[in-house]
């Protein structure tokens, strides 16, 4: 990023360089003009001095060049810088003197070809080639009062300021002329024609003029330009630092403010725009701080409100969960009540007929045995066995139904879970292809439970595990103390429970087994809940299942 100070310095430096250059050019042109004017005045003085000299007049009047020695000596004495390039004094009859300076390599003839009497009558500032072709008049001026003709002659690379003046007869006294005009009468001559004796021509070389101008350039203009430019840039550098420093200070403070430090203020006390800006900036910062504080207060209130809302939401979620749980429990209880009532009715109604069938079957079998009927009809014996087996099974179902409906309030007493597990395992016929593993993490405290009911629960869970492992597997029973509970986990490596069946697995009459009634787990959860415990299920289809039974530890 290019800083404002750099931009300012670059801009001002450019301006100063331009101004400095213009000043130098102006000074150069002015100096050149002054030098040219001085040269011109010198030339006019010289030519007038010669033209008005009585000896020159006499020399021209009598065509006597010897009379010119003294006037020329006087004129050359005045030429201290040796600027006179040539001198030419002539009258209409002949040339009296024709001299060039020793350092001029041009013949007088060549210079004079650029001058002819006819040229004096031509318009001023005429641009024309001379008859000789070697010189060119590039500027011509004429003063009508003193009759001096001025020309600039370029001749073979040399530039001459040429001054030519007629040498006239002495003029009348001007004030007397004026008096004659004011007091004049008819006989006063209107205008006296002055006699021209001849002409004086002086050429000043531009060589010395150029030397002086070069001297002015290197001794005055160049140092002046350098001083102006370097001084200007230096002053700009200092001024820009002076002007930009407050802005930089302000910029650093704005960064602090942007980072959140609204206590920062700009301490610039000046009566200019920057002072006003700092004042406004401080006012703005104060206003910003007030707004920021207000915003922070509002944000704090909002955060508090959000926390309250989150808390309320959590409470609502908990309440909702409790409600949902309660509702589930109510639904299950109602369902269990309905199922229990149905089971109780069905059990009572089927129990007696089944008892009668069983008794009748016993009598038939006994009678046939006594009469050796059985040997005669092997087929009949097989049929009797089926009837007896299915009757037993029906009796069991009826007993289960009655057991489900008549789950009594547990009669708790301190019991050793190890013994209950052993009892349960002994009551279930575990197939040979299933390996059983019991892990008991000592110490295992006594628990206050109805050992019979818990034993039934464990039997159900072991039986279910064995049913799930038709192709064999591992049954692990793991008992341990966890905080206030005693946890017993029954893990099998069977087929697992499908995801969609997990929620219904504890519902009565729900079963995944082909010959099950769907009452085992319903009875089990009912028993555990009556003991203020929990049953959890962890299962993944195809990888087995874990039923975790948590029973509260008796507090002593």
């Amino acid at each position: 990023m290019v800083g404002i100070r750099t931009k300012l310095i670059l801009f001002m430096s450019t301006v100063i360089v331009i101004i400095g250059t213009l000043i130098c050019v102006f000074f150069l042109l002015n100096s050149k003009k002054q030098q040219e004017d001085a040269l011109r005045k010198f030339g006019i003085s010289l030519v007038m001095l010669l033209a008005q000299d009585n000896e020159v007049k006499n020399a021209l009047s009598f065509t006597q060049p010897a009379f010119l020695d003294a006037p020329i000596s006087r004129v050359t004495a005045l030429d201290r810088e040796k600027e006179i390039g040539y001198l030419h004094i002539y009258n209409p009859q002949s040339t009296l003197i024709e001299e060039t300076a020793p350092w001029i390599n041009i013949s007088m003839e060549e210079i004079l070809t650029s001058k002819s009497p006819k040229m004096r009558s031509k318009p001023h500032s005429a641009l024309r080639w001379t008859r000789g072709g070697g010189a060119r008049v590039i500027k011509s001026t004429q003063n009508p009062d003193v009759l001096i003709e001025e020309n600039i002659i370029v001749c073979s690379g040399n530039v001459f300021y040429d001054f030519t003046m007629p040498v006239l007869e002495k003029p009348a006294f001007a004030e007397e002329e004026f008096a004659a005009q004011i007091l004049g009468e008819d006989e006063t001559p209107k205008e006296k024609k002055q006699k021209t004796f001849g002409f004086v021509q002086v050429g000043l070389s531009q060589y010395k003029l150029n030397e002086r101008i070069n001297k002015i350039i290197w001794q005055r203009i160049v140092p002046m330009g350098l001083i102006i430019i370097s001084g200007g840039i230096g002053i700009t550098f200092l001024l820009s630092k002076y002007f930009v420093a407050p802005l930089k200070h302000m910029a650093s403070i704005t960064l602090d403010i942007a980072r959140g430090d609204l206590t920062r203020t700009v301490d610039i006390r000046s009566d200019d725009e920057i002072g006003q800006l700092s004042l406004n900036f401080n006012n703005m910062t104060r206003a910003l701080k007030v707004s920021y504080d207000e915003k922070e207060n509002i944000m704090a209130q909002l955060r508090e409100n959000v926390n309250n809302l989150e808390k309320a939401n959590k409470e609502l979620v908990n309440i909702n969960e409790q409600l949902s749980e309660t509702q589930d429990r109510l639904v299950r209880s109602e369902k269990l009540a309905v199922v229990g009532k149905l089971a109780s009715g069905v059990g009572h109604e089927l129990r007696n007929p089944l008892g009668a069938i069983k008794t009748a079957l016993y009598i038939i079998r006994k009678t046939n045995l006594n009469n050796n009927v059985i040997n005669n009809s092997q087929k009949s014996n097989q049929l009797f066995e089926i009837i007896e087996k299915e009757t037993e099974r029906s009796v069991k179902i009826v007993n289960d139904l009655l057991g489900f409906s008549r789950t009594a309030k547990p009669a708790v007493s301190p019991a050793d879970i190890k013994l209950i597990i052993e009892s349960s395992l002994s009551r279930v016929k575990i197939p040979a292809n299933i390996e059983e593993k019991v892990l008991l993490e000592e110490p295992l405290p006594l628990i206050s439970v109805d050992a019979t009911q818990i034993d039934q629960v464990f039997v159900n869970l072991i039986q279910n595990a064995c049913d799930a492992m038709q192709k064999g597997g591992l049954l692990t029973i793991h008992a341990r103390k966890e905080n206030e509970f005693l946890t017993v986990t029954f893990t099998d490596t069977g087929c697992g429970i499908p995801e969609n069946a997990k929620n219904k697995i504890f519902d009565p009459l729900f079963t995944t087994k082909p010959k099950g009634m769907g009452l085992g787990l319903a009875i089990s959860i009912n028993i555990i809940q009556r003991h203020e415990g929990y049953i959890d299920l962890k299962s993944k289809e195809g990888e087995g299942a874990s039923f975790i039974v948590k029973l509260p530890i008796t507090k002593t």
Partner: protein
Amino acid sequence: MINKNNKFYKLSKGVVTYYILPLLLLTSFYISIVTAGEKTVTIIQSQQIAAYNEAVKGFKEACRGKNIAIKEIYDLKGDIEEGKKIVQDIKANKPNLILAVGVLAATLVKEQFPEIPIIFCMVVNHYRFNLQGNNITGISVEASVEDQFIILRNLLGAYKNLGVIYDITKTGKIISEAETIAKTLGFNLIKSEVTSEKEVIPVLENIIKKIEALWIIPDSTVITKNTLEAISKIALDHHLPTLCTSEAIVKTGALISISPDYTYTGLQAAQIAQILLNNPGTPSMGIKNPEKLRLTLNTQTAESVGINLTAFQSYPNIILYP
């Protein structure tokens, strides 16, 4: 007791009355002449112009019979070199008084003869040349500004805005004096400065609509061969009355000039000379205004401007041109 009827008494009375007294008177007269001696005056005039000649003529006539002998009359012919020779002659002759006619003569004798009483006249704008000294008395060739304005007011009425062009280096003194007089006489002097004759016509064209009359003063920057006719023409084109101090300018088209009677100026100079010669040691009498003025009117210009001339014809010393 003397008898008045006595013959001797009568004879004596006759002799005394007709012989002795005149004799005594004549004797005393000649004695005084012999005692005083004849005073000599040298006249130098700058050049031969009619105005100078008129003044010299007036002086000569006025000196006649006044025991003033005009020893020499020199003509400088407008050339200062000529004057150098003449100075040598005058120094040899030692006149009692010198009359210088014209500026060249006046400036020459002022420098060369500090001991001899000098009277100068016919010097235009004399104050420019510092013609002052214990031995120098002069007669101005211009009517006083006050006289000029009074005549302008009396003749032409109240022209409020009076324009004038001048070069401050030459006639600044006249203008500063004229400003006060103009206010007193109810004129509003609109003055325009110039530094060269080239500026005169543009400046005149610039002020011509603001002025009601033009006052031409003898300023050598303003009045030149090139400008004089143009000034008169522009004034005429705008029907402006012009006041000047030169009959020559009236002849170019100006309306009126107020100038001295040059012959009378000579006479006035002779009167001063008499006083100075009869009272040796009298200091300078200063610069006198011309005692007799004359008006010159251009009748054609008057007609163009719309001025009725009948009222002026009763004025003394008035010249109507052409």
